[in-house]
């Protein structure tokens, strides 16, 4: 617990120092949202219909950037190894990093929502529900994303490798989050959003525990 606090302290410092990066990634996500609308054309009904999908695709694309960045500073001077030798437990380091990535993705997601509302005319008044879906979906991206980013940060061709590994893995997150978001936007007569949220919870629970368990093997020689 003490180590987790230390890890969170470290992440807070790093996040604060690299906050400009987060802003840049947000701009990237927003521009992706803009580009998606060109792929559909100026058809507001169609745009509104696909808004949820575009929001999550934009967040998914941005996530690979922010996840990869999160291990950049750890690996360039092997600061991460330095902490492991102190010793810091890999478990604390993983959950610190995953929580920080989670927060970052939630911020990105929340930031992209107004862009979506403006561009696609896809507003909703069920804001707590939307926030909940973003929180759950971002958690699903953060845990495996953190684990894979730790690997790919040390591999060749890291820019290609991270999305290649992460995208197929988070298909359930994408499906469930898009469905739930779109139900919130377009109306949910059969109250299905809750069951999609449940799927997200299950995915999060499995991957947050599994990835934490395996992280030690990934970072230790």
């Amino acid at each position, binding site marked *: 617990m003490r180590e987790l606090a230390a890890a969170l302290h470290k992440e807070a410092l790093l996040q604060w120092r690299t906050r400009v990066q987060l802003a840049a990634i947000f701009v990237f996500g927003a521009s992706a949202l803009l580009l998606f609308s060109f792929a559909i054309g100026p058809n507001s009904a169609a745009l509104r219909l696909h808004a949820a999908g575009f929001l999550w695709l934009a967040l998914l694309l941005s996530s690979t950037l922010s996840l990869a960045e999160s291990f950049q500073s750890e690996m360039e001077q092997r600061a991460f190894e330095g902490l492991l030798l102190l010793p810091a437990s890999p478990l604390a380091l993983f959950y610190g990093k995953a929580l920080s990535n989670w927060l970052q993705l939630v911020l990105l997601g929340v930031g992209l929502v107004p862009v979506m509302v403006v561009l696609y005319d896809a507003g909703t008044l069920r804001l707590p529900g939307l926030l909940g879906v973003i929180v759950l979906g971002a958690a699903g991206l953060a845990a495996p994303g953190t684990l894979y980013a730790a*690997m790919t940060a*040390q*591999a060749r061709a890291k820019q290609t490798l991270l999305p290649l590994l992460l995208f197929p893995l988070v298909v*359930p997150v994408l*499906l469930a989050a898009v469905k739930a978001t779109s139900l919130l936007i377009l109306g949910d007569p059969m109250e299905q959003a809750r069951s999609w949220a449940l799927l997200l919870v299950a995915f999060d629970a499995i991957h947050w525990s599994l*990835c934490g368990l395996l992280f030690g093997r990934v970072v230790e020689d």
Partner: protein
Amino acid sequence: MAEPLPRRGPGPALAFVVLGTLLLLAGSILGLAVAPPENFMGDVQRIMYVHVPTAWNAMLAFTFAFGCALLFLFQGGWKWDCRLEAAVEVGVFLAVLLCAQGAIWAKPTWGVWWDWDPRLTTTAVMVFLFTGILALRHFVDDPLKRATWSAVATIIAFVDVPIVYFSVRWWNSLHQLQSSPSTVSSVFHLPLRLNAFGVLFLMIGFITLRTRTAGLRLQGELAPPLPEPAAAPGLVPTRAGA
């Protein structure tokens, strides 16, 4: 890390391949010429005699890879890494073939090459999941890291497969109900069984030979094992200084 690499000449592998080929030929002839057409699907049903065995064995290959990953992580030994590489590659091959066969099945049955049937879609996701692991292996040069990371990725990917399956099934069933292909007509099981064992033996042959290739490559990447020290290490510490 212990040294042992799997050793087996191409002999046993070739034997498995020959046996598998013979079984496949027999099963396919039965399935194409002897088996009666199915009640609803007619002759198209015959695709199932090769499709279903491919599906079973693809799953088997990935399950084997999962077992290798667990054994590598919790028991160790390079042989599990070599086997994992072989099993993942053969599994991806079978899964790609499975998708192609599925598309050929879908066209006459549903009128489209691709339907978002949960099984077909899950297979496609699996192709990408495990291709990613092959790519990871390609881009990591340190043998130990490569082995550990691909074992970890294999475990995560394998655990993810059922979640993908259920999410796709759910996702699809909400807007349309799709008749899935019944596994096989109950009239005629023999060609299915022959082909299942045929593909199984072919797969064993491929995995064996591919494991050997991986072992040889690993051997080229690792320094040759050192001769054991004359005395058991730990018993005769030498002193620095004096």
